[in-house]
């Protein structure tokens, strides 16, 4: 990796830390502990359930919010008040909306003009998510009472 690509904007990482905590506590009454962010090499997702939101404008790329399925089911239950299984459309919708809020809330702290895509949700063990290869992927590990999740940030500023 070149020096240029390993430069990570701390404002962006901080924004995702804030938004993740805010969305989980406001929408799912769930507190999370943030671990030390690190660079990720592989393309495979961390866990079994991933919500993906793209960025356009002065910042491009995506964020992947990856959960263990156990954790996602619990979190969705906290969010919706319903116990959906991972194959339910409602489950995917709820994961998508949580991801949308995490991405959108973080975006407002970037200080840039940017838009977000409609969220996509992928469910399945060891799925991979294509990313921009010239941009480092920073993983923000999160621990909750229901299990682990990871916020994977793969963005670059173009503004």
């Amino acid at each position: 990796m070149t020096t240029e690509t390993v430069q990570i904007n701390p404002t962006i990482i901080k924004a995702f830390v804030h938004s993740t905590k805010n969305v989980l506590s406001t929408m799912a009454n769930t507190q999370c502990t943030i671990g030390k962010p690190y660079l990720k090499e592989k393309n495979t997702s961390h866990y079994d359930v991933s919500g993906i939101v793209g960025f356009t404008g002065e910042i491009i790329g995506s964020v992947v919010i990856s959960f263990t399925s156990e954790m996602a089911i619990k979190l969705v239950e906290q969010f919706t008040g319903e116990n959906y299984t991972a194959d339910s459309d409602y489950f995917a919708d709820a994961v998508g909306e949580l991801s949308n809020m995490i991405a959108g809330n973080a975006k407002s702290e970037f200080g840039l003009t940017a838009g977000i895509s409609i969220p996509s949700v992928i469910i399945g063990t060891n799925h991979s998510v294509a990313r921009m290869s010239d941009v480092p992927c920073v993983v923000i590990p999160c621990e909750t009472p229901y299990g682990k999740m990871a916020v994977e940030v793969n963005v670059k500023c173009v503004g």
Partner: protein
Amino acid sequence: MKFLLVDDSRTMRNIWKKVVSSIAGTEVFEAGDGLEGLKQITENGPFDVMLVDWNMPNMDGLTMVTKVRETDKKSIIIMCTTEAEKPRIIEAIKAGVNNYVVKPFTPDTLLTKIDDTLKKAGVGQPA
């Protein structure tokens, strides 16, 4: 009072529906994007209050609000969105929204927002 809830996430619509249904005498309609929202207005409108998300497929909330305001200056529109940047809020106000709530928000926040907006517009007080 007639409500229209427009958000591409049905989870969100369900949460809003619970909030709105706690207000006495409400009738609730839903739409999954701006186009469906306009269709609901044609078929079941006019609505007293519309809660409208911004980021949706097919037609976004800002476009929908702009279209609604071409003919309807009266309905109360509250934008409920993750879009929180000042220029966005200004854009929405220019398009004609009465109020703005940034996601994530709790049911209480939404209820208070609806209440305040109705009062400001001089519409009878909800529950």
